[in-house]
């Protein structure tokens, strides 16, 4: 499993990650980011892409 952490103090809810990994990240009706904190290894490439496109660089994979 991949463990994901988003620093919600840094996140500006831009939602770029949503396009790269839609099964992991979503914007809710209040424009706030929601995400799965733990996902299958098969999603690694998508999660890395989501990390790349975050303008705030708020997403990381927890070692």
């Amino acid at each position, binding site marked *: 499993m991949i463990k994901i952490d988003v620093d919600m103090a840094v996140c*500006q*809810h831009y*939602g770029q990650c*949503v396009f790269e990994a839609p099964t992991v990240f979503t*914007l809710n009706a209040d*424009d706030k980011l929601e995400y799965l904190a733990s996902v299958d290894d098969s999603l690694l490439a998508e999660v890395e892409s989501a990390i*790349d496109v975050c*303008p705030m660089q708020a997403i990381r994979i927890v070692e």
Partner: protein
Amino acid sequence: MAPEADAQPAPVIIVGAAMGGLRTAEALRKAGYTGALTVIGEEIHAPYNRPPLSKDALSTGVTHEAVAFPQRPATADVDWLLGVRVSSASLAAKTVTTTDGVSHPFRALVIATGIRPRRVIPSVSEGPRSLSGRHTVRTLDDAMALRDELVPGARVVVAGSGFIGCEVAATATKLGCEVTVVSPSSRPIIRPLGPVLAAELQRRHEAHGVLFRLGRSIAVIEGDTRLTGIVLDDGSRLAADVLVEAIGSDCNSDWLAGTGLDIANGVLADAGMRAIDVDGNAHDDVYVVGDIARFPNALFDDVARRVEHWNIPTDTGKRAGAVLGAWLAGDAAFTEALALPFTPMPAFWSNQFDIGIQAYGLPGLADSIRQLEGDLAGDCIFGYYRGTRLVGVVGLGMKAALLPYRQQIATAEAEAATTAR
């Protein structure tokens, strides 16, 4: 192809060690290239994220650690030459030369040298360029130097009313500075926002105490060793402790003079990010990435444009890395990689006071603008149309509501492209 039998092949050299260079290096490794890879960068810092530099980093303090991109195992063996400037290149000899006189042979070259802030040239007289109090905001060092001067009560003049200018104006105001924005434009960020949204943005800035001197340019920068004031072209004078120069940018393409590449505006590239020379030939061993790349995007049309949005170095870097990686792997892979469509969705964001601006597409292409949703004084969405086609969308707030419009830009354009065939 049996490189092991010969001398060690020259490395792939990426000139430019910012986000675009990093993403290209990662994409090359992902594409299977395991050979030598050298990244040469003028700044001493390993690649870092620039957006915070005009925003949070100015208010909370800024360190390289806070903004550095994480390094991945795939690029652990990249040779980083930092604090080194490339002065020239020869595509025939396949070398780049650094300012210390060293010639570096390359197997393939990636151009990712980006842009630099354009400096203010007053119409009448200019104090020394080194006048303390004059600042730009591009690099980490720039931001650190500016941060030290944004103290409560400081009189700050921001030259330029684009995104960077408005972000710095907001941040400096929040830090207690007295801020005046000077710009020849009629409204802040009028390109690409358009007059209605730009007027609203100005109203919100003014409500927070920012002063605007629009339709004006700088005639005189006063001061001997330290900035003391700015005289505008109407003769009025602004006492000033700090001048932030955010009037636009120039491409770092000087080192490519004499290479035969088309460097009229940035560096021309095709949709595979291969560099194009003045005779119109694409170079399979030379690629262009990031702000400096002028490339076509079939999402819109076949016109090559430079796009200075944050997502572009990543998108073009991944594309260039994939195509170059395929070229290094052999003909079949190369043909296949080049044939894949490359249609990155331009995206930009800005935070100014409590205003969250988010946009997709190229609003600047529009010939008409319509308010699509919301309330102009609160949260709202504007659509930017070329003919009947949505080419851009800008939201104040309403981030989730923007997403279907982003999809519409991507889909409508895809349909148009199919019909045109």
